Structure formats: structure tokens, C-alpha cells
């Protein structure tokens, strides 16, 4: 936890921040064999966990179907191997949650910005699962489906695709704009409560502005909570 990177959030992805910090904190053991870092994506069903991960792994958005149990992925990230658990949000699989979280170095709590309940669920249902995670586990709070609320996404879209990969979905097909149900402030407040729950020192932890995001896995865009600045979804190359 000592090592702190001051990475410009605007230039790179917040996920990158998480991982870099985490991977430094971990011993660098053998490649591929033993993952250096365990990362878990939690959140209510249908908030877009699998889509986020899919965007990250394959830079694509595609229709997914409800995840069963949990899906495990290994991702080479620079010199590090990270393992990622994409969990099912359904209550049916709740019992496995603590197993997925055991020893996790980072947890991404995901909610749907158009669905207030999905934010509430994070605290009610998912936070306690992280008891088995590491004590210094890093939390990020991600509000997905921002494209459903903010028409700006569509304008920003064209100029930013660094990968040359056209967005899968074209603007006209974007669903009708829904009223945003979750304000950033609520997510930031939740972040504070999480730190207190985990008994982490708020001053030495990453500030909420850096760890709360609104994203759209569909249009590959992301905002941090501190600015209205729109970010490209630029993940480390695979």
C-alpha cells in the first residue's frame, strides 16, 4: 500500500490505476502460473458486469446472457497476470460470492445508473461478500449504462476510438434516454461508507473522485466523478 502512483486519470483508464497499484503491492511470482492479482466484479444482475469485462478483454460490446455462477479469466497485463472473476449478479448464486472474493486485491462494485436499487444492492448484498477479500483491497464503484442517460456520449464517440474499432452500436439505435436515477454524489458517499466498513483510512486510500466512475460498456466511454471530462476507454493492450 505504500506505493502510490499518481496517474493521470484523464489519460488512462481508471482500471489501470487499480491494477498498477495493486500489482505493485503484490509479490511478483511466476508468470501465467499464479496470478499476481485477483480482481472481482460484483453487482446486481443485469447491471452490465459481463459487458464491462467483455469491453475490457475484447474491446467489443455484444449482447450477453445472464452469467451463471462465476466466470474466471486470466489476463496478461504487462509483466503481471491478473485473474478476474466475473460473477453472476443473481441471488441464486449469492452463496458463492465469498469464494470468488477470497483474497481479492481489488473489487469493482458495479451498478446501473438508471436503476437506483442496483446501487442500494451493492451495500445490502455485495459489500459483505468482500469480507474475505484482502484487508487493503481496493474498491472502485462503477455506474454502468451511462449511455442510456447522457446524450453526450454520442457526440464524443467518434473522435476517441484509438483502436480503430468502431463502436458496435450506432447512435440511432441507442435506447431512448432514461432519467438518471443515481447521482454521482450517492456513489461517492457509498465509497466513503465502504472505506469505513473496511476500516480503511480514508486519507491513505485512493480518493473517491478517482475511484467512482460512470461508464458505458456499450459505447466505450467513461467519466470520472470529479469531472465531466469524458474519457476514452483505453485499456492496456492485451
Amino acid at each position: 500500500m505504500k506505493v502510490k502512483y499518481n496517474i493521470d486519470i484523464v489519460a488512462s483508464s481508471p482500471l489501470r490505476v487499480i491494477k498498477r497499484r495493486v500489482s505493485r503491492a503484490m509479490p511478483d511470482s511466476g508468470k501465467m502460473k499464479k496470478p499476481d492479482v485477483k480482481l472481482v466484479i460484483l453487482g446486481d444482475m443485469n447491471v452490465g458486469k459481463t459487458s464491462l469485462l467483455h469491453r475490457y478483454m475484447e474491446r467489443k460490446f455484444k449482447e450477453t446472457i445472464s452469467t451463471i455462477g462465476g466466470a474466471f479469466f486470466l489476463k496478461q497485463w504487462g509483466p503481471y497476470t491478473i485473474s478476474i472473476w466475473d460473477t453472476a449478479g443473481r441471488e441464486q448464486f449469492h452463496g458463492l460470492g465469498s469464494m470468488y472474493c477470497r483474497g481479492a486485491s481489488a473489487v469493482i462494485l458495479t451498478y446501473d445508473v438508471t436503476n437506483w436499487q442496483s446501487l442500494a444492492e451493492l451495500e445490502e448484498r455485495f459489500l459483505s461478500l468482500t469480507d474475505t477479500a484482502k484487508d487493503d483491497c481496493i474498491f472502485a464503484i462503477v455506474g454502468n449504462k451511462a449511455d442510456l442517460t447522457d446524450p453526450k456520449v454520442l457526440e464524443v464517440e467518434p473522435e476517441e476510438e484509438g483502436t480503430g474499432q468502431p463502436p458496435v452500436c450506432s447512435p440511432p439505435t441507442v435506447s431512448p434516454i432514461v432519467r438518471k436515477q443515481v447521482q454521482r454524489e450517492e456513489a461517492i458517499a457509498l465509497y466513503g461508507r465502504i472505506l469505513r466498513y473496511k476500516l480503511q483510512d480514508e486519507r491513505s486510500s485512493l480518493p473517491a473522485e478517482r475511484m467512482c466512475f460512470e461508464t458505458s460498456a456499450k459505447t466505450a466511454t467513461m467519466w470520472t466523478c470529479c469531472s465531466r471530462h469524458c474519457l476514452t476507454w483505453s485499456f492496456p493492450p492485451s
Partner: protein
Amino acid sequence: MEEEHQDREQPEIVRCSEPQSHCSPDDTDSLKAAATITLDNTSPAEQGCGTEDPPPCKLDALQEISSTNGPSEPEPEPEPEPEPQPQPQPQGPGGEGPLEASSDQGKVGAGEENGPSEPEGPAVEDDQPENASDSASTDNTLEDSSEFVVTVLARGSLEDQGEGPSSELSEASSPAQAPAPSHRDEDVTAESWRRHRKHVFVLSEAGKPIYSRYGNEEALSSTMGVMMALVSFVQSGDNTIRSIYSGEHGTDEHTVVFMQQGPLVLVSVSCSRQSEQQLRSELLYVYNQIVSMLTQASINRIFERKKNYDLRRLLAGSEKILDGLLNLVDSDPSFLLSAVHCLPLASSLRDSLSQILQKAITPNLVFSILIAKNQLLTIVQEKTVIEDARLEPADLHLLLNLIGASSAFQAGEIWTPICLPLFNPDCYFYAYISYLDPPDCTVCLLLLSTDKEAFYAVADCKRKIDEGMRTQNALRAIAKAQSYSASQVGVSDLRHFMYKPFDVPDNHRQLTQFTSPEMEAPYSSEEERTRLLDLYRYMHSRIHSNSRPLKLIYHVAERETLLAWVTSKFELYTCFSPLVTKASAINAITKLLRWIKKEEDRLFIRNPPKYSTTPNPSKSSRGGKGGPDRQDTTDNGFLSLL
């Protein structure tokens, strides 16, 4: 509630056709009986099993159902098939007697078979009276006094709907095709919704909707309420409703089958003309798939605590799995035969695959299964566990369906609790699912462990298996493996067959398997495939009729001739070109059996290998059923939700 209902609807009963009820000991029979009724509204009387009182209620409820729900709407699919009508004629002569030739045949109730009704066609009519009287004669015993079948002719409601019967060709075949993505959003008041070939509903005892194959359950809550009213009304008389037959003969026939499983009620509303027995077994698959996700113990417990619990809360997201199951049930004969379809593979290759699996083990690993193209490549089982209980084909079907429905993201390794309802309905296994050949994702590895925490150990097994496959270049060999064509048998008139042996060595612990060639022309289109499967289903229902089982049927249909034959050693369904003669068909079957004998090492898994992952023998004694610990069911967090 039911009473009120009854009162309200009573007049309608009168108006609408003669309700009839039968105590029929046997599902299939009742089907025939029903059809008979439909045919000529009087015949049912001769069945005279005597439960005449309940029908009114049932009938009015039926009316209700039909009006909201459309079971009695004009027959979607027989209509488009023009061929059935002429059918009876050609068949009569052809089918007069059963095959005289080989051993078993003589006994087969002779005249019985000629009539050939295809499941989908008005042709059934001709066949029916005869059946009905047949069955009536054998029927008199009430097997289960607590169960009866209500047969009803709901012509009234049919008229209410005023629907032109014709032109549903596409509708009829559509269920077999890939489902439209929007089933959930379907307008349940639309005519197209009513016309689906087979509806399946799941509800709780409190009448809460849990699942509907088409349309949103929420929108169907009143319909489901009526279904529940039916069930509980009959229950209040210490009886169990089993089925309702409705529809005017030849234009609209629906079979409504009810099945209660613990706190769940499953209802199938079908115009597929399958036997009640078959529909019932399909409902059982649906129930078992739900159990596979939640376990029977937790379902029961949940409803014990809270009668009106909304199970969708736990099943949300699983609809696709159930949808997928129902599509498979409609299109894959494995479900009909309750047997597993193996991919033909040189036995040396299959053995080496098995060895690779045998070497990659870890404690508490129970089953290692390799699957390609939705067919079994090989399966290795834990010794002590299968001594306690065997892996049933039905459980394997549920697993295969789960794999098919979970392939959203194929690069990953999935770890999920899964219950195998026939193995042990109250416990979870933990399934590891991963594809060995990304990105193609055709060869799937499935490892089942009893240890919830074993993911990493099991994932290590997969790495070993990966390595073993690579060194032996097995993936390429598997890619070359494919199903075979009926022409390879070398019998000119043979178009297709399904062969299910009973005489596999060590049968007791063996998976029931069957083999079948690709469906080729003329069965290459979806419609034709469905038609052939319907024919097979019809043959199957005749062979397995409870009251009048047959050993051999020679059935001359309009576009093909079928022969089904069951002996103590095998069950065989064959499809020939229509011009085949009885003698040549028998000849062909002899050749076919010889060919299968010659190829059986390739077609079947002869000796499923075993391994031992429980070094500590005491482990094998856990629970009568062998597998997973009971605790896990409570562990899954359902109860905390209540």
C-alpha cells in the same frame, strides 16, 4: 374462488359441446380417447370410466383458459400439412399386419398399427376410433384412483375465437427454429401468441407466475390464476387433475397437461399432438432444470416458509436456460429416448481421450465429461460415487443444455453450483465449464466436483488436460470426427434411424445411449425435421403406451414408411422411403443391425472409464446418494433472503 368461477361459467358449459370425462389409467390412452371424442362426440361414452361429475368445472375453466390463453384456437399446424388427409388410404393396405418376419413381431397387436396417424394431421382421426375402442377394452382398471383425466371438447370457445384455421405453416414450425429474441415481450393477447405450438407455464401453488415460455409471466398472471384454480378445485375433491383435451377435431386440438411437483405446478398447452405421457416427461425436464439451479430442498423450504414467495427472484436470468431446454426438447430426440447421443469416434481415440481425463484428477472430482457439438465424446466417473448412484441421461441433458445456454463469454472458465436432480435432488455439485479450443469453442470440458472451493484445483486439471490434448494432437482428431450419414449403412431405402441398445456391457452402471445418423435430405429443412420427429414421437407413444404397449409398428405414412421395433436388447426407429415393401424393410433392418454391431465400438461408449479421487474410503459413505454434502444447499444463501 373456484366455486365462484364455476357458477359464473356454468351456462357456457351447456352451450358448448359435450364435456366428457374419463378416468383413464393411462396417459396415452386418454390421448387416444380424447382424440376419439374429438372425432365423434359420442365415442367417449364407451370408455365409461365414470368420473362424470368434475367436468363441468373443468370445462368452464377450460373455456376460460381458451379464451385468455388460446389453447383451443384453431389448430395451427395440422392445417398446413396437406398430406395427412390422404394418408389413411395408403396406409391401410400397407399396414394391415405387422411384420410377419422376425421373431418378436407376431405378437404385436396386429391391426393396430396400420393406422398410422401421423401426429400432425387430421389423419389421426381415422386411426382413432379404433384405438379408442382398443384402449377402452384394456382400460377399465383405474390405476390411480386419485387421478383422472378430463376430456373436453371445447367447441364453444373455439367459435368464440372465430379464427380461421389455415395457414399456420410458419407458426407451426417456428418453435423448433431459433427463438425470436423477443419472446419475453410478446403480446399475450395476440393471435400469434396463441398459435405457438407448445406453451409451457410454471407457477407456484399460490398461483404466482414463475415462468412462461412465450410472453411475459406478469401479463399472464390471470391465466395462471385460472390454471391454479383448476388444480386446486380438483384437489379439493381429493383428486389430481392430469390433463384436458380440447378442440374441434381436425381443426384445433390442444392438450393441456398439468403436473404438480412439490410446491410448483407445471402446465403444458400443446397442439403438437404428442401423447400426454411425452408432454409430462417434458414438463419433468423443465422441473428438473429448475431443481438443477435451486435444488429441490431449497425450493420446498422456501415455499414452506413463505407460500407466496416470488420464485422469479431466484430464477431471474434463468429464463434463457429454460427457453433453451424447451427448444432442445422440441428438436433433439435424446429427450424423447432418454438417452445420450455420442459422437462417433474411433475407439482408440476415445480411449486416449478418456486416459487424458483419467490422469487429470483432484480430490472430490466426480465426473469428467468431454463434449463436442452438443454430443458426448467421453465421460469418466468417480468409482465410489457411481457405485452409489448412476449418472442418468436426463441429468446429462440438463448439463448439456446449461452449457449451451451459458456460452455467452467463451474465453472464460465457468464455476457454478449445479444440482443433478436424478442423482440427488437436494445437493449441489460444482461444475467447471471451459472450452478447450477457443475461439472456436466446439470442444467443451465439464468437470464436476463436490467441493465448492475446488475451483483452482479443478482448473489445474483443465491445464493438464489441455496439455494432454496438445501432445496427442487430439483436438484435430476430434474436429475431424463427425456424425455419419444413413447412406453409410448401405441400405438403399433407409433414410434415417434411431437405435438405442439395452445390451451394453455393464449396463447397470452405464449411461443409456443411442445412435442416429444426420438428418439428411429430404429432412434437411427445419419443417421436415420437425415432421419426422413428430412421426417418431407418434411411434414412440404407441410403443410405450401404458395400456397397450406394442413391440413393433409398421407405419405407412404418405411421404415415408416407418418401422419401430422394441426388443429386450434394443429400441429401434427407422424411416424408409415410401416405396419400401414390408419384406425389404425387414431385410434392411437386419442389415442395419448387422452394421451397428460392426460399428458399435465407434458409435457408443462401451466401457465408461473410472477413476478414484477419494483416497479416503470413508468419504464414499457420505450420504446415501454419494455425492455432495448436504450443507451446501443451505449454504447458498436463499434462506437469508426470505
